[in-house]
């Protein structure tokens, strides 16, 4: 069984290797090979899952040590895997959704001559992501962490000939690097504190370490949070996610909705022990989560680009998860649960969006959609189900997972609990609003289609089955996953051994919370219908309120980055380049020059007149005599 874990990672890795080095001869079959290997990896996962279910709760974790990576005295980095319930959940999500998206991409990328490479990158991503969730120590996790970063870089920038894409890719990688500082510093802190960075060594010790090394443990917590912010696009490192939509839609669905961006949640949940030991860090986490869930939601309301709108929503949904994870044992389970359900419906939504774009020759502006439900029914239905799921329509998966998080938020207790809970509720309302907006602008109302750049009139049509089937499957997931998990709280029992779970005492009963959520939902949908359902949508975006305009610009976050970081950085480097030339180099050249000048002046003494030479000799002698006498004198 242990070896199977290795294969789990090896399969897609192999795929990546073959596809990327294989050359043209694989162009015909490459995508199939990629999909196959992804599927294979899913099968391995499934086998392991079944095998795991066979064992009883606390015996389920599997460990397999491959080899020692970096052995330097105290610093012993191992390459070893740990497959427990938490990792297993992710494995299934990643390989499952991953495979679906491979299938979807076969159709979606059919006309791209670099499709082979696309699948190579996808496989690379799967491998890295699996490494991330299977690693049994933070150092190896770090490798996976940066690996997914690379994959995301390559895939966002897949259409490199588009400068916007290339820029977005670069931005994503660099912002992520900022987060990575957090992770590496955290690892260093662990090494200097615990003398190791393996889960098995660090997590158990975290609690009593905080007794003596409280500051350090808190520090580790904050650093991990920083890492999470980078990867999961949380405030203040969220700016890259919107631009990341430059990538092909399947990528957005897989990496920037379902899996990679949730790595932060995984990291925090995995490091639960540390956060439990560092309350301050937890507070920071929930704050970030709460802020982001509102931030993302607001941004989502203003975007006319369907993918950007969805990106905003992703941000906000992950905000929910982070917040939940920050709540500690009360929330870990629900964070993961929402993560999984979100994986289903958000992937579904993105694929839907992709299918729409596919039909509308890659138009992304929702103001140029409208009334598409008749033309692409399957897309409409699957997208619709996803929509209902995300706004938390009773009975669908989103309803269960999000509801739990809101409850947990209140259960945190105290004013903190109230604030978080209300924030979550408000978020729910806004979610309902912008999702409805998307729904209405895309599928309802009158046609607002426009010819594209080349002047082709769009002929909306349903996408090929290779694309619709995954959408349908995901739709099923988004409908039933929630119920499936929540039924006599299966999911809680499943994860409890790893994350631990505590109910907490909610000041408000579950019933009231649900009711409140419903109210918010109705309000949100209602407003949206009033604005976009009743009135017709202008093909050109109105100027809109100040907030709207700010939201369109990601609440000016990019402008801030541009002015402070980019411009500032440019100025800094330009100054340094100048200084390096004029100052550092100048000193050296200056010395040389001054020697030259001195030489030039001394030359003049050699004026060619014998008599002046004689003078110098006489003077020299005089000095010599004087000096000699002086020496004797002193």
């Amino acid at each position, binding site marked *: 069984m242990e070896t199977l874990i290795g294969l789990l990672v090896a399969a897609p890795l192999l795929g990546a290797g073959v596809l990327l080095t294989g050359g043209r001869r694989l162009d015909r079959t490459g995508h199939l090979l990629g999909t196959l290997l992804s599927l294979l990896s899913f099968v391995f996962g499934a086998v392991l899952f079944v095998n795991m279910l066979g064992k009883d709760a606390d015996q389920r974790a599997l460990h397999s040590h491959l080899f020692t990576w*970096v052995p330097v005295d105290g610093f012993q980095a191992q390459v070893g895997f740990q497959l427990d319930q938490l990792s297993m959940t992710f494995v299934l999500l990643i390989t499952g959704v991953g495979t679906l998206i491979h299938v979807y991409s076969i159709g979606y990328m059919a006309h791209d001559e670099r499709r082979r490479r696309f699948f190579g990158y996808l496989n690379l991503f799967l491998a890295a992501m699996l490494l991330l969730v299977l690693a049994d120590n933070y150092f190896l996790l770090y490798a996976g962490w940066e690996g997914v970063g690379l994959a995301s870089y390559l895939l966002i920038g897949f259409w490199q000939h588009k400068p916007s894409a290339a820029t977005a890719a670069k931005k994503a990688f660099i912002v992520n690097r900022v987060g990575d500082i957090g992770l590496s510093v955290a690892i260093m802190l662990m090494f200097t*504190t615990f003398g190791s960075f393996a889960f098995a060594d660090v997590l158990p010790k975290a609690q009593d370490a905080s007794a003596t090394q409280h500051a350090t443990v808190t520090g580790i917590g904050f650093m991990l949070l920083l890492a999470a912010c980078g990867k999961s696009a949380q405030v203040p490192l969220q700016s890259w996610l919107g631009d990341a939509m430059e990538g092909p839609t399947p990528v957005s669905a897989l990496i920037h909705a379902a899996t990679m961006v949730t790595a932060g949640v995984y990291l925090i949940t995995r490091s639960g022990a540390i956060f439990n030991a560092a309350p301050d860090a937890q507070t920071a986490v929930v704050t970030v989560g709460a802020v982001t869930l509102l931030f993302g939601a607001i941004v989502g309301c203003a975007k006319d680009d369907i993918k950007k709108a969805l990106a905003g929503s992703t941000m906000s949904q992950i905000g929910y998860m982070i917040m939940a994870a920050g709540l500690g044992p009360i929330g870990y389970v629900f964070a993961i649960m929402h993560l999984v359900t979100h994986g289903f419906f958000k992937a579904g939504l993105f694929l839907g969006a992709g299918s729409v774009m596919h039909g509308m020759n890659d138009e992304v502006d929702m103001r140029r959609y409208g009334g598409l439900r008749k033309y692409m029914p399957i897309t409409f239905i699957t997208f619709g189900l996803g929509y209902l799921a995300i706004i938390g329509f009773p009975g669908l998966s989103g309803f269960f997972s999000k509801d739990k998080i809101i409850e947990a938020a209140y259960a945190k207790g105290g004013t903190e609990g109230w604030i978080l809970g209300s924030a979550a509720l408000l978020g729910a309302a806004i979610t309902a609003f912008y999702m409805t907006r998307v729904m209405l602008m895309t599928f309802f109302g009158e046609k607002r289609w426009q010819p594209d750049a080349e002047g082709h009139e769009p002929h909306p049509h349903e996408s090929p089955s290779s694309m619709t089937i995954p959408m349908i499957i995901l739709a099923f997931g988004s409908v039933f996953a929630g119920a499936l998990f929540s039924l006599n709280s299966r999911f809680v029992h499943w994860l409890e051994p790893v994350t631990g779970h505590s109910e907490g005492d909610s000041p408000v009963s579950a019933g009231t919370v649900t009711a409140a959520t419903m109210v918010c939902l109705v309000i949100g949908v209602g407003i949206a219908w009033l604005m976009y359902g009743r009135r017709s949508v202008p093909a050109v975006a109105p100027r809109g309120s100040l907030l709207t305009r700010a939201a369109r610009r990601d609440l000016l976050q990019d402008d801030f980055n541009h002015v402070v970081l980019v411009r500032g950085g440019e100025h800094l480097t330009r100054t340094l*380049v100048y200084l390096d030339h004029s100052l550092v180099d100048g000193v050296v050249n200056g010395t040389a020059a001054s020697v030259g000048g001195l030489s030039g002046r001394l030359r003049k003494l050699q004026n060619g007149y014998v008599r002046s030479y004689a003078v110098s000799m006489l003077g020299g002698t005089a000095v010599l005599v004087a000096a000699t006498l002086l020496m004797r004198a002193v």
Partner: protein
Amino acid sequence: MSFPLLTVTAVVPAAGAVITAAVPAARKTAAKYTALLFSLATLVLAIVALVRFDPDGDRYQLTESHAWIKDFGLRYELGVDGIAVTLIALTALLIPFVMLAGWHDADPLEDTNRRWRPTQGFFALILLVEAMVVLSFEATDVFLFYIFFEAMLIPMYFLIGGFGDRAHAGGEEEAARQRSYAAVKFLLYNLAGGLIMLAAVIGLYTVTADQLGTGTFSLQEILAARGAGKLDIATDTERWLFLGFFFAFAVKAPLWPLHTWLPNAMGESTAPVAVLITAVVDKVGTFAMLRFCLQLFPDASKWATPVILVLAVISIIYGALLAVGQRDIKRLIAYASVSHFGFIILGIFAMTSQGQSGATLYMVNHGISTAALMLVAGFLITRRGSRLIADFGGVQKVAPVLAGTFLIGGLATLSLPGLAPFVSEFLVLVGTFSRYPVLGIIATLGIVLAALYVLVLYQRTMTGPVKAGIEGMADLKARELLVVAPLIALLLFLGVYPKPITDIVNPSVHHTLSDVHKTDPKPALEAKK
């Protein structure tokens, strides 16, 4: 006396140089193959040495010792520890690639006259440099080391000044001017450093002569004498001597603010020569810090550590920032190297086993990764006939393989996990952090900047719409692929499995650390107990 493996390892390339130079003008290709052959022979010898080296054996192995110039206390003493033998292997490994990459760089444009034989000269000089570098890695006699450390400059100087790349904005005239400026700058910088060191070397002799009766430069003798308490350098003297040595090495390494020769030298010389500078020759500097500064003057080293560490961190950030600001591909890579050398020096003077093993590993990895990046950049530049980033764009569309390899080289340079440099960089950072947390964190910022300059470079040159002058660009040829592929393979292998090297290096690092009486700091928790 056993087979003098080390001597032979150095003599083979030297002989190769002579023979290559002797090949008649008309037989250019013959000369090239001769040179390549000898470099490969050297590689074999180096590998033999690597295999024969026993990590758990004596500190210095394969030793040879003969009197040379009695009056100067100069002995021909060779010996390698784990660090040296690894670096020799690196050198021997890189040279063939350098040659292959520079296969046509030195072909005379037109047959000017029969006596002027640039091609022969180019390859002969490369072999000569190799011989001297290898010897300076092997020398365990301070003076012997100094001799080759200095002599190495001359062939390097001719390589830089004589064979700049033909791609230059300012035209042939300007190119020649810039080139000789760079060459002179390189030589004078390093000569100045060397001469300062000479004073220190003489000082060392005087000290040993005073205290041991006979002046000596032999590392073993000096260490032994100090161990036996026979030799005890006065604090001030030791500090002065240390500074004398360190200055020379800091110039060679190069350490901020003594770095300004590097961008010129690397910018003006052909890519293979640039690789020779940064990947091979400069390593002698950092290596010498590890072998001579720390071992000869442990107390002074500890005394100077704070300043040096700060300078190293400055180098890291400063080099990276300047790399971001460059308009010229090669200068960009040069500044990136400045940043990397900062890491190496940081690791050495952090005085932890992680730091120093990391630093050694870093020397190797940086050698390979820079070689990969720089050589591909060289192919790119020769194709376009320009070094300016602005002249490129959309290369990946016309030459995907070239772009791919370039990206991998870049990713190695920004030390992505899975590629070799990551391991060493992280080791250095951890090693530093465990003793100097603040510096460690500041240095960590370097990884963001690295990402910045690499990806910006890639974006500007490779992505976007295809620029004018790029349309017809050919993808990598077989020879070029033969250069790049092995390097990349090596990067991947060492990224995933650096153990073979760390196993050889670790014991030597322990020796060095015990010289400076330093032990790794204990983890906080254990310390508490």
